[in-house]
């Protein structure tokens, strides 16, 4: 092995270790809340929560992220499946968590409405916030004038998925909170408890903290 190869692996190890730590913070919180399953279609930001994480590929044996921290995991083919499966898990006495990206969230509106919301399932949804950085510090854009909106959604500087995420959640009456990193760890339990009180979905928007 050359020196540069060793250096590359060392950097990869370091990056993987950082991912693992960030994921473990969330998984620890979920386990403390009583979560039993992670169901979803993770993106780059949340893949470490599922199997095949960098740590697993590197042969590390982490307590949480590679084995789910005791949480059973299932990857689905479409985000709507995740909500319906989560509803079924809850009917069966389990306490699932959904893990999806915001683009999948937009795709799965009727599944969310017809299962989780309609059945009254307390469900924490970890949502990868694709394009958050493109919002330029104005995440909600709620103050934008209506006639500017369509032009903004066509802009090459803006990820339209990101621009529509928070307004969509608001329209669907799904409370949400940002998770920007370890400093927001308390938001996991807070969102979990809110979902229980409301008997409905609550979203935690991951702004890329696990990447």
């Amino acid at each position, binding site marked *: 092995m050359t020196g540069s190869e060793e250096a590359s692996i060392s950097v990869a190890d370091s990056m993987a270790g950082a991912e693992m730590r960030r994921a473990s913070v969330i998984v620890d919180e979920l386990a403390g809340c009583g979560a039993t399953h992670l169901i979803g279609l993770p993106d780059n930001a949340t893949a470490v929560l599922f199997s095949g994480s960098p740590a697993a590929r590197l042969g590390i044996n982490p307590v949480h992220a590679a084995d789910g921290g005791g949480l059973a995991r299932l990857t689905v083919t479409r985000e709507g499946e995740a909500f319906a*499966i989560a509803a079924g898990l809850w*009917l069966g006495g389990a306490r699932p968590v959904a893990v999806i990206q915001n683009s999948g969230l937009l795709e799965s509106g009727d599944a969310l409405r017809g299962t989780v919301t309609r059945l009254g399932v307390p469900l924490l949804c970890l949502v990868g916030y694709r394009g958050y950085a493109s919002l330029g510090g104005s995440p909600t854009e709620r103050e934008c004038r209506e006639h500017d909106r369509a032009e903004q959604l066509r802009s090459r500087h803006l990820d339209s998925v990101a621009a529509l995420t928070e307004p969509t959640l608001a329209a669907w009456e799904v409370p949400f909170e940002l998770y920007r990193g370890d400093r927001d760890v308390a938001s996991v339990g807070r969102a979990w408890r809110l979902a229980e009180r409301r008997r409905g979905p609550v979203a935690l928007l991951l702004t890329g903290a696990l990447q």
Partner: protein
Amino acid sequence: MLTKAELLQPLAEHRRQNDVVVTTMGVVCPWERLSQSALDFASADSAMGHAADLALGIAMARPDRRVICLNGDGSMLMSRGTLATIVESGATNLILMVVENRAYEITGGQPVPGGGKLDFAAVARACGFPSVFAFVQAEAYDAALPSLLTASGPVFVSVSVEAGNEGPIARGPGEEAIYLRTSIAEWAVRFRMALANS
């Protein structure tokens, strides 16, 4: 081609007391005429095409129970990826029956794309279901039912049935089925409790 009665009556007779049965769309009302179990869940007035997902979730949460899902062909087409997810899940206690009536019956009988031409059993087999059955005659279905209910799961069953004329599913105190007399949210709580305590 079977009638719905030829499909459902034998199933009701072979259904174990602690089996969970998830129904949707055109099968909800015919099944309610045969079963009033606390472990019946009508995925009605709910999301389009997600009854099989719901059933999978129950099966995953309760691997000690047999979960039978009576799905529609239109519903199955809306969420075909579920077939792969079911296999991926490793759930062995799920029996997914697709009732092929080739119509969106409760919304007016509009034809389902590919109705009568699409081979659901072949799709399920390709997705990796270990046990796959297809029936177009009542006699063959009757003969195979006991063994398919105990086959290595997950089990996929397609059954060709005559389209009926079930109308929209209603909920209210006047409905025959106990699970249609309440909101789906209230029944969800009762069902969850019944499953936990049974």
